[in-house]
């Protein structure tokens, strides 16, 4: 882990300064202050970069979680659909059979609609308009 602080820089500074002994003391102090300032800015930049990295990682995690959740939901839905298809027979949509008329009614309506003439319709009504008592 890379930790930069002013104490380390201060400790390294005399060594470097020691190598350039010809430089005057005031100039050395100015150089040290400038380096500290630069290091502080670098530190700030690094910290900011770390923050954005961690935030990006968190964002990425949320997206992953939402993706996983979506996948799981899709799998759950498809399993449910398969089960209801098995229960309801051939129908693809499990709700499609609830409001459809019975085949007998469809046949009766088709027979009724197939006859155009009013007289023939009356005949059919008379034929079917009987009551059965057991």
């Amino acid at each position, binding site marked *: 882990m890379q930790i930069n602080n002013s104490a380390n820089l201060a400790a390294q500074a005399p060594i470097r300064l020691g190598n350039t002994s010809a430089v005057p003391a005031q100039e050395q102090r100015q150089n040290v202050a400038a380096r500290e300032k630069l290091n502080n800015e670098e530190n700030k930049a690094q910290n900011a970069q770390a923050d954005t990295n961690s935030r990006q990682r968190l964002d990425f995690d949320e997206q992953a979680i939402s993706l996983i959740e979506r996948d799981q939901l899709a799998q759950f839905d498809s399993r449910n659909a398969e089960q209801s298809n098995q229960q309801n027979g051939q129908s693809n949509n499990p709700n499609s059979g609830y409001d459809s008329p019975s085949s007998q009614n469809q046949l009766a309506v088709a027979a009724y609609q197939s006859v155009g003439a009013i007289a023939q319709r009356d005949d059919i009504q*008379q034929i079917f*308009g*009987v*009551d*059965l*008592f*057991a």
Partner: protein
Amino acid sequence: MLIKPKYHFWLMFLTALIILQLPFISIPFKWLESYFHEISHGLTAILTGGSIVKIQLFPNGAGLCTTRGGSAFFISLMGYGGAILWGSLIFYLASTHRKVALVFSVLLLGLLASSILFWVRDLLTLFIVLILLALVLAKIKYSAHNYLQKILQVTGLLVLINSLMSPLYLLDGQARGDGAALADLTFIPEVIWVAIWFSVALFAIYRLSKVSLRAKG
């Protein structure tokens, strides 16, 4: 051994019960009850402004009356109700006088004959109604008039006992038949209608036992 008159009714009732338990002999009497049941549906349809399309009878004692128009409530009600009325009427008229019994038998013949002419549309029903016709004809032709009365009384009781027991078959949990039709029309449960028919038949048997005593007296 001489049986007291007050026990005559119950002796006939017992005879009718025994006949209904006999394997083959009971069958025509079940058909008779079924015929009275279906003809009651039909006659009620006519009385309430409708008409009879056809009447079907089946060997197992079941029947079907196809009507058009009329009051569905009264037509449904009078199936079992009508059979009770017919049974009571046969017994009552047979108890009054020999001539009345004879006239009633002839009327019954006329009803059976007109049923064949107007409302029977299949061979099986024709066969069953012809047997009933032959039964009534045999009663008139081969019985001395005294016995005709007794035979008609037993016939009336046979129809009545069948009418007493038949509604109980409706309690099969299948919601079919006249009880279910009345339940649909009135929102009164089927079991209540069955109880009404059963009670009316019991009451009719009780009243006829009193009528029989009075006739003897």
